[in-house]
């Protein structure tokens, strides 16, 4: 691929990535939102996090298939319990890494 094409590619990718990041900030932060929209947006973070996490824990392969026995999921259980109990972000990250490392050594 010649340089100019590559530059166009990166600019195009940058543009279509930037626009969805920018439009809502620009449009919504300057005004008062209707109550239902505020309440809806209040539920978006928990929904997105859950939608990001769960499929990557219980599915695998291409095309994706259900996989209920894997190290990622196995480690997630104690890590989640630890997070619920301590509410410590740093501790959860360190514990997650340690357990994942150990699980990879002994089960992987």
């Amino acid at each position: 691929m010649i340089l100019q094409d590559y530059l166009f590619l990166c600019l195009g990718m940058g543009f279509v990535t930037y626009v969805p990041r920018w439009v809502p900030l620009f449009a919504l932060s300057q005004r008062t939102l209707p109550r239902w929209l505020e309440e809806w947006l209040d539920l978006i973070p928990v929904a997105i996090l859950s939608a990001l996490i769960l499929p990557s824990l219980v599915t695998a392969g291409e095309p994706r298939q259900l996989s209920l026995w894997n190290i990622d999921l196995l480690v997630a259980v104690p890590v989640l319990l630890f997070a619920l109990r301590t509410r410590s972000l740093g501790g959860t990250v360190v514990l997650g890494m340690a357990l994942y490392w150990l699980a990879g050594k002994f089960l992987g």
Partner: protein
Amino acid sequence: MPTPAATADRTSILKDGIRAAWPICLGYVPIGLAFGVLAQKAGLSPLAIGLMSVLVFAGSSQFIAVAMLEAGSGIAAIVATVFTVNLRHLLMSSAISVYLKGIHRRWLALFAYGITDESFALNLVRFREGNWDWKRALTVNHVTNAIWVGSTLIGGLGGSFIPAHAFGIDYALMAMFLCLLVYQLRGRLYIVTGLVAGVVAVALSLAIPGNSYIVAASVIAATAGLYIRRRYPEIGRTKGPG
């Protein structure tokens, strides 16, 4: 000359931002290195890799773009794919906009550049807890951006100085997300919404290729949650600020 007070203020903003950003940085290093190595194998120079990381700053779409480049896809097809992969940022940007009211548009334009899954989730939790402002959030965005660009560059130079899968570092982001999810469970309604999102996301991800399931499941779950909040107000009552 900035006054000593202004300098101290700036230092504390930087310190708070960096301190908050470390789990993301830890997670970005192995992914960035892996991307750099892969892109270099696909024939991209370190400069080309750095350029893409600076202009795009989105992990999964960069991996997809390199895979499509190798497969000989055209520019339009790659750009269109990247667009659909990153549509989920629409929802994140909307949700975080609530905390960025009254900020000058110039700063919003800069802030938008740094919205990723990781910075979004982390900043949102901090905003909700209080003691957080847009300058500290912006620091998180840019520190993580610098780490991403730097590690993809180093990977592209062939310097994968961290052996693959060392010290469970691959799990850093997952552990961070799990803890940030726990922070979001502020009442029964949030637990129900999270469960709906997770189950719908798994079902959709098995049924359709790509990652559109993230946006679809989030919209469905938040809408269901809003319905429940209206229909059964006793479930919707939250602890703490809504």
